[in-house]
């Protein structure tokens, strides 16, 4: 049995063993093993040249990773907390994302930017953000989010092997909580694919990252009340893989999207628009969104009001069913 944190550590180790060009960069990732211990022990085994403790400057980390990639390395950058990614925002959206395009396709940018994201850990300010829509809105980046240890193990390796830059979102609140059995004999699903994680008949619930667990818990409760929820883990936010979503919604006629990020112009808005375009005649109710409110992320003692929980999700399911 393995936690999500340990699975990421094992996946990073595997990627570093497979490709000597993989270099990890970040604050406190070496001797300390990262503030969440995701890189625990890696510097000891791979050396300071491959697990690099950097000066405390996020733009510097991502900008120098661009240079390493240009020299033929595959940098894997750790942003310590989601809210600290913004000093690197220019390098990510102007440089990393556009390098392949602006070099007329001559230079690829195989970089992974790992971001522990979302809330629910009672943290201080700027430590619980969900910035995924900002990166999914940026052409040239790909954005994925893992939701469980098994996906984490495979997805981090697939992301590192990808020739394109990937923002890799890790639900920090699940790092050390749930465990899963990692069976290496079971091959992984492709990186840029969504996955049905629970079959159901009445309403399709779309989630990613930390809200997949929320959705599965909600489905278990709904079942007792006689409502059957189909839960799809989107996994990839850019590109979106919505074919399984469309197939599901054509059956159920109802969809609810749930994420922690602010609802306004969040991923749910895009997903709802696409479902409407593709499944208009199958819909029994408008696609509903359950998300963080359009407020800054609140102080820890108020985050329960901000975070979409089981009850708010089931409330949306009820509204969809009674539309």
């Amino acid at each position, binding site marked *: 049995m393995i936690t999500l944190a340990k699975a990421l550590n094992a996946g990073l180790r595997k990627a570093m063993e497979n490709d000597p060009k993989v270099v990890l960069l970040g604050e406190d990732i070496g001797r300390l093993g990262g503030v969440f211990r995701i890189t625990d022990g890696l510097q000891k085994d791979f050396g300071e040249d491959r697990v690099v403790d950097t000066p405390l400057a996020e733009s510097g980390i991502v900008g120098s990773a661009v240079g*390493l990639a240009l020299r033929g390395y595959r940098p894997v950058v750790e942003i310590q907390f989601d809210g600290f990614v913004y000093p690197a925002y220019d*390098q990510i959206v102007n440089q990393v994302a556009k390098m392949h395009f602006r070099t007329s396709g001559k230079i690829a940018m195989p970089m992974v930017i790992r971001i522990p994201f979302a809330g629910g850990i009672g943290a201080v300010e700027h430590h619980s953000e969900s910035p995924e829509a900002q990166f999914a809105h940026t052409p040239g980046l790909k954005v994925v989010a893992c939701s469980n240890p098994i996906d984490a193990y495979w997805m981090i390796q697939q992301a590192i092997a990808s020739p394109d830059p990937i923002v890799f979102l890790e639900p920090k609140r699940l790092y050390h909580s749930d465990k899963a059995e990692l069976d290496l004999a079971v091959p992984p699903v492709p990186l840029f694919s969504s996955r049905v994680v629970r079959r159901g008949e009445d309403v399709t619930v779309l989630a990613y990252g930390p809200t997949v667990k929320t959705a599965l818990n909600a489905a278990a409760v709904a079942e007792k009340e006689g409502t059957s929820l189909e839960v799809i883990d989107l996994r990839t936010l850019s590109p979106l893989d919505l074919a399984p979503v469309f197939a599901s919604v054509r059956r159920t006629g109802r969809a609810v999207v749930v994420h922690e990020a602010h609802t306004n112009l969040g991923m749910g808005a895009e997903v709802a628009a696409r479902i409407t375009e593709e499944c208009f005649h199958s819909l029994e109710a408008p696609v509903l969104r359950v998300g963080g409110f359009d407020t800054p992320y609140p102080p820890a003692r108020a985050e329960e009001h901000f975070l979409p929980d089981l009850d708010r999700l089931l409330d949306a399911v009820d509204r969809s069913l009674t539309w």
Partner: protein
Amino acid sequence: MSEFVQLLTPEGERREHPDYDYRGGPDQIRSLYRDMALVRRFDAEATALQRHGELGLWAPLVGQEAAQVGAGRALRAQDHVFPTYREHGVAWCRGVDPLQVLSLFRGIDYGSWDPVEKGFNLYTLVIGAQALHAVGYAMGVQRDGAVGTGDPDRDTAVVAHFGDGATSQGDVNEAFVFAASYQAPVVFFCQNNQWAISEPLERQSRIPLYRRAEGFGFPGVQVDGNDILATYAVTQAALQRAREGGGPTLIEAYTYRMGAHTTTDDPTRYRLSDEVEHWKLKDPLARVEAYLRRNGFASDDFFAELGADADALGERLRAGVRQLAEPTPHQLFDRVYAEISDELAAQRDAYDAYLATFEGAAS
């Protein structure tokens, strides 16, 4: 800290410096002059092409030829350069076809040369962002074991170009920190041309820019940016120091932007013509010509032939720029990713289908 490095006065007289010496002979000086003259013509043609509507924009380098050609010619083949959008002279030295630079300013692409083949990255327009790329690249050089081996064909240095305005940017300061921390083989080449569009140097710094290096823990040197013997010698020394594992150097090439910031700028709104007239007396080409003529190192024939070569270059650029192929709609989509997503491919195909609905569209 070295004192101001000048090895050739504006009058064309050689000068001694305690730390730096230009060791090239008349052949090389003629060759450096030739590059400066051709780059100046390239720049003048580009400005004219913009005025004729053939380019969307041009960022003139006139006045900065000695800084750029000196820095460019000091490089070895394996070195790697990260330019701003004004390094046309360095591009020239790296063998980038000027038509590829014009292609960018014509709006056809964002740079079509191969950065790996030329050892010359694409232009970067976000001020200072490339300084970090240079440091990261230099960190890669270190990991490749291409520093301090003593093999002149293997040891590699990296150059980050930027201007006086960029020294205020966070990225440039972070690049200084990273380079110092890892002792990366990088040379920071700052062309202080006195103006960041309309803002004078005094808005960026209260001390000479080269002195900033000391606070970061590596040497800084101020060089007469209009003296190509000095820029060449100082850059060569800093590159060699980097290749040997000595770490970063900041070079402040003290020069002047004789022209506008770009062709959309009007410098008469913020600076006096007296200042421009003053800098005309320090012209980077005139002093070399005076030196070559006075010492009998170049004849009238040399300058006449060079003039004819410059005319031929101008003709090639004027004809060539009009023949550059226009971009295609497919390039929009196909260059975004190394592996295009199904989602983007579908968007491309839908746009194809839309275009096909127009009368006379190619099938």
